[in-house]
């Protein structure tokens, strides 16, 4: 029966509003819709009326038909212009808000690869294709791709950001409504692009704490936090052969590196951030710190994107230099504070 057939389908008209961004987003969306509908109605009515009234064979006054009118031209240029500028400012304002996360937002790492989303919580819980978050907390996703471009998209949050190989991108949200919402990959990425997705589970704080205490109800690959894993990697790759707790002839110290401005041999300067740390491990030759030669080998082929994230987390915990620059390299392969 057609009735019951139709009843099989639900016909949702809008996605859920499950983040703080969703409401102001929908306001702009509906304002634009109102404007669109208004212009369509005006033009369609105008055309219909003219066509009927001036149909060939219908009696009408056709004398002195105008062929131009400056004031009219200016009006219908200016009015759309003003409306467009209004929309531009409103929309850009919201965009900027969506791109500048609160300072203390909780960071979660997302790594996109063909065809899966790897998610890494700060306490060491990993998930694939699922993201559990507490309601009402500012969450910042720091994202990178391992192979091709992907795009991390949660319609219920009205947020999306491409996930690009070789550079970190970011987006943030504050979930407002517990529930299960789809995650999609929105940038075409190959054979199983359509299956590269999963769900975000927004939970009350209590549920989330329970989930976390159970280790995410998943078998964890390791119980180490990213910092601890970073430290282990730092030791495994013997980074400390050259990078100790003060600048040496072999290499600059990494203590207090993150956030500091670096001077490079080519005269340029840069604040050492996540991007810089990654680049220095993958292609150290790109920016040489003043006073040093290109002696560090690239770790490009040995290190994965998640390991790079762990190393960054670890390096970020290293405080300021603990001693004055040493004149001779201490034959040490460990840093003072990490033991």
């Amino acid at each position, binding site marked *: 029966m057609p009735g019951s057939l139709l009843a099989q389908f639900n016909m949702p008209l809008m996605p859920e509003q499950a983040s703080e961004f969703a409401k102001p987003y929908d306001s702009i969306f509906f304002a634009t819709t109102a*404007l669109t509908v208004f212009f369509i109605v005006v033009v369609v009515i105008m055309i219909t009326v003219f066509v009927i009234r001036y149909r060939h064979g219908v009696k009408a006054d056709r004398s002195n038909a105008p*062929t131009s009118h400056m004031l009219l*031209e200016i009006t219908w240029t200016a009015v759309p212009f003003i409306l467009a500028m209004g929309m531009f400012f409103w929309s*850009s304002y919201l965009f900027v808000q969506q791109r500048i996360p609160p300072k203390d937002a909780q960071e979660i790492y997302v790594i996109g690869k063909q065809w899966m989303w790897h998610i890494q919580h700060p306490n060491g819980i990993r998930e694939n294709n699922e993201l559990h978050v507490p309601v009402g907390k500012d969450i910042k996703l720091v994202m990178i791709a391992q192979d091709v471009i992907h795009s991390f998209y949660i319609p219920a949050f009205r947020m999306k950001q491409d996930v690009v190989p070789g550079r970190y991108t970011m987006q943030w949200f504050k979930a407002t409504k517990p529930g299960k919402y789809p995650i999609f990959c929105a940038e075409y990425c190959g054979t199983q692009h359509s299956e590269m997705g999963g769900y975000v589970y927004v939970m009350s704080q209590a549920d989330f704490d329970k989930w976390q205490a159970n280790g995410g109800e998943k078998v964890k690959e390791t119980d180490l936090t990213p910092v601890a894993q970073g430290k282990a990697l730092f030791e495994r790759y013997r980074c400390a052969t050259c990078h100790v707790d003060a600048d040496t002839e072999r290499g600059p110290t990494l203590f207090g590196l993150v956030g500091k401005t670096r001077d490079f041999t080519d005269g340029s300067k840069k604040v050492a951030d996540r991007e810089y740390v990654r680049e220095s491990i993958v292609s150290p030759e790109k920016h040489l710190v003043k006073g040093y030669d290109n002696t560090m080998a690239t770790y490009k082929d040995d290190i994965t994107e998640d390991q790079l994230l762990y190393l960054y987390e670890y390096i970020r915990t290293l405080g300021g230099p603990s001693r004055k620059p040493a004149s001779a390299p201490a034959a040490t392969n460990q840093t003072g504070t990490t033991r």
Partner: protein
Amino acid sequence: MRASTVKNPAAEAPKPESNYLNNGHTIASWLLTKDHKRIAILYLISVTIFFAVGSFLAGLIRAELILPRGVMLENETYNKIFTLHGVVMIFFFLIPSIPATLGNFLIPMMIGAKDLAFPRLNLLSWYLYIIAGLIAIVAIAMGGVDTGWTFYAPYASMYSNSQVSLTIGAAFLAGFSSIFTGINFIVTIHKMRAPGMTWFRLPLYVWGHYSTSIIIILGTPVVAITLLMLLAERTLHLGFFSPELGGDPVLFQHLFWFYSHPAVYIMILPGMGVISEIITCFSRRRIFGYEFVAFSSLAIAGLGFLVWGHHLYVSGQSMYQGMVFSIITFLVAIPSAVKVFNWSTTIFKGSVRLQTPMAYALGFMGLFLVGGLTGLYLSSMATDIHLTDTYFVVAHFHFVMVGGAVMAMLGGVHFWWPKMTGKMYNEHLGKLSAAITFVGFNLTFLPQFAMGYLGMPRRYHYYYLWPDFQIYHILSTAGAFVLAIGYAMPAFYLLWSLKHGKDAGPNPWGAKGLEWTTPSPPPTENFTTIPIVTEEAYNYDPELAEREETLADMLEHDYSPEGAGN
């Protein structure tokens, strides 16, 4: 038969002995022709075939999506099909469609010239286009390509195992074909206008092509270079775009869209020109605001080069960069709005005939309006975050490119068919096909706006992760089949008219414009004597037009079945 128009006694004159169609019947006389009109016909046949292929692929895509887990295709096959649908429709149908067919046929006639400036180059560009098409077919035979028509790196350069290089080669050649056409048009319009044909007496159709040709010759070389870079990265591992080789993937998108956004205007500006011709003729009115319509084409062509970054708001480009692109994108929307207002006002106080070309033109206005206005959602940075790469975008660009450019193409083919072939087609079927196309189109693509807003990503073969989208997919697929009927109909009644249609005479619509002063089909050299232009374009008089009757009017009123092709 009565005289076809009061104003055109030439209709009663005996049929010209020789016209461009009967001047040589061998295949070689067609394949080696330097006549712009014959080349236009060659193009018309070729783009129609490509359109049929592309539409068939669209039908497969639509059928597949009825169920959340797909109906019949593997995901790999599906990816190849939507890629081919895009490549065929963009590079082999939309970009050449109006310029290479109607433009080729009409530009010399509209400006009072015997041919284009470079007839041999014109033929060469058709051959390049055909070779490109053959290469594309070889690429399909060898396994197809699965990158999407946008060829994004590093997927296309490093990760796709399909025939990317061949397909890029095909797109590259097709690009050169359109560059040659563009150069030919610009030189022709500059150098070969008849005496008295000043710039401001040019038909707006010619202005549309002039603007398009500027975009073609400035933009197409950029995409050609970009595709070569991609090829070099793929085959020689030169690092341009892939971070593994030291490149930047977002750079590819900048270079690609620098051409491909203006390419949308390559598709739509000639369409707008067609609409200006049709609206004026079937309203019997001088166009309202000639200069504004002409200059808005140039404004669109110029500003169109500065907006490519609106495809990249969520790509990781800086948000300040995004804001610059956003504001210019809003600006470029305004000349399009101006055109719509001017066309609407042109109907005011006209003597309106709702014949087939006008039906298509009104359909164009409705669909282009929706396509244009939904562009605002994508120019706005905030709304674009959610909507980009979803079906909202798919709906938007189909409204502009299919609702706009294809409607204009069909309107134009119906308008100039009597000129090209000397025959009238069945007016009732013509109007019916316009109506079916309009309804089918809306049924196909309106649901996609809703689907996109709900979050359905584009280029998805499955949506079982969130099957709520299904009802909209079903509606859309149903619409596609209605639309297919609307598109297929003209192929039948137009071909039918070749044999059974009434003779059109030089000017069955009672239109102005030099192309209507010469016999239908025109003789090889277009005009027996080079015309001298003494008046503005569209010098129509609606009051007078109330009293005159054209062949088309007569066919519409006392339609006799033994006549125009039932």
